[in-house]
């Protein structure tokens, strides 16, 4: 067995940490794109679509992310698709993120006072024009703090991708520990890695929230 210096451990964790960051970014960007489309469709008038999207949101919010990852990975294989851990993890995390963002953003749109719709309507703006010029800009301001806050959940969620063999921070920690047998040091460092990624985001979310309410927007 080779000897691991602390630096070896840190270096390996940092290398794997890149993939945590990349997977988080993919999940967040993909989730935001899908979530935005779902939010807009859900706000539209067509009942069956609204119902389907609600079901989608409920399913992803009501099942563990771990199961979603298993289903994406092993389920796809059972259906005859050959998906890599990368694809499965990206897919599952994207869907998971989209469901939560859809719900957060719907709440923000509904939080815009109904008087704004009315004012916009009596000035002659139609639904899409009202959305674009009056409702969404206000909803967007409300949405920034909870969205940034949720990004923390996405980063921590990527840890679960380790169970399908995706080598990110957590998986790298496990592998290093198998070789180096220094569980406390290694997992403390892994935790520190997540903290370094998440802490600035949650601080930023809290700051944004304070600023929003301080400005008396609502």
């Amino acid at each position, binding site marked *: 067995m080779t000897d691991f210096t602390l630096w070896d451990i840190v270096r390996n964790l940092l290398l794997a940490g890149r993939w945590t960051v990349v997977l988080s970014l993919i999940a967040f960007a993909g989730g935001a794109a899908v979530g935005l489309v779902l939010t807009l469709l859900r706000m539209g008038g067509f009942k069956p679509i609204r119902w389907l999207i609600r079901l989608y949101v409920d399913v992803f919010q009501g099942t563990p992310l771990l199961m979603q990852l298993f289903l994406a990975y092993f389920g796809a294989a059972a259906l005859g698709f050959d998906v890599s851990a990368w694809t499965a993890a990206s897919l599952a995390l994207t869907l998971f993120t989209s469901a939560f963002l859809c719900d957060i953003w719907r709440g923000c749109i509904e939080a815009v006072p109904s008087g704004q719709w009315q*004012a916009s309507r009596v000035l002659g703006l139609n639904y899409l*024009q009202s959305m674009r010029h009056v409702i969404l800009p206000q909803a967007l301001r409300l949405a920034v703090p909870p969205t940034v806050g949720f990004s923390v959940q996405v980063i921590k969620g990527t840890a679960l991708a380790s169970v399908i063999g995706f080598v990110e921070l957590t998986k790298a920690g496990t592998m290093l520990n198998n070789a180096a047998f220094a569980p406390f040091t290694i997992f403390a460092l892994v935790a520190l890695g997540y903290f370094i990624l998440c802490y600035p985001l949650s601080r930023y979310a809290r700051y944004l929230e304070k600023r929003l309410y301080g400005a008396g927007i609502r």
Partner: protein
Amino acid sequence: MALVSVKDLHKSFGDLEVLKGIDLEIESGEVVAVIGRSGSGKSTFLRCLNQLEQHDWGTIHLADQRLDGTAMSPGELSQNVGIVFQSFNLFPHKTVVENVMLAPLVVKQTPRAEARKIAEEVLDKVGMLEKIDAYPAQLSGGQQQRVAIARALAMDPKVLLCDEVTSALDPELVGEVLLVLESLAKEGMTLILVTHEMKFARDVSHRVVFMHQGRIHESGDPQTLFTQPKTPELAQFIASVL
């Protein structure tokens, strides 16, 4: 021909019949004050006039055009009937001038420079020109309401509806908004005002309409109506508010 012509207007919410047959003709340039107890259907009447509520029966004509039914899109409607509410509902993320320019830009597709000119004109009318770049949150209630009036005027409506536009204001801010309405009246703007300001109704309006239980119970010129009410209901109402 009257500018606004309402015939046999009926409106129910479920089992509750709120408007039980309203007939009203309003000439161009006329200022009509609508008074009456809370719940008598005043707001519902105004909301039917600009189709925020669909009435069940009757017709509304503006100039020669049928206003109700599917004849007019919201865009066309806003160029015929403007409305201002008790709550100003300015767009908080836009400056004063952006609030006023939005509908001309988006609905009428007015070129930006021209929309800006229109906005400056109407803001001047309501005395808000110097606050053109302020955000609504930086304005007093009275100032916000004046901007809301300017925003409605920017679409150049043929008639302006005002639903208790001073009711949400602190007493010391009521006067500035009433002054704006008075100057619009003097300019010949056709106004239909639901108001609790009896002095204003008496001094500024050409005609007062008293609504009671979903009907026009009594109407006439302000002097006679306030001094010699014909019905006990109006006499009682006047006694209760003066």
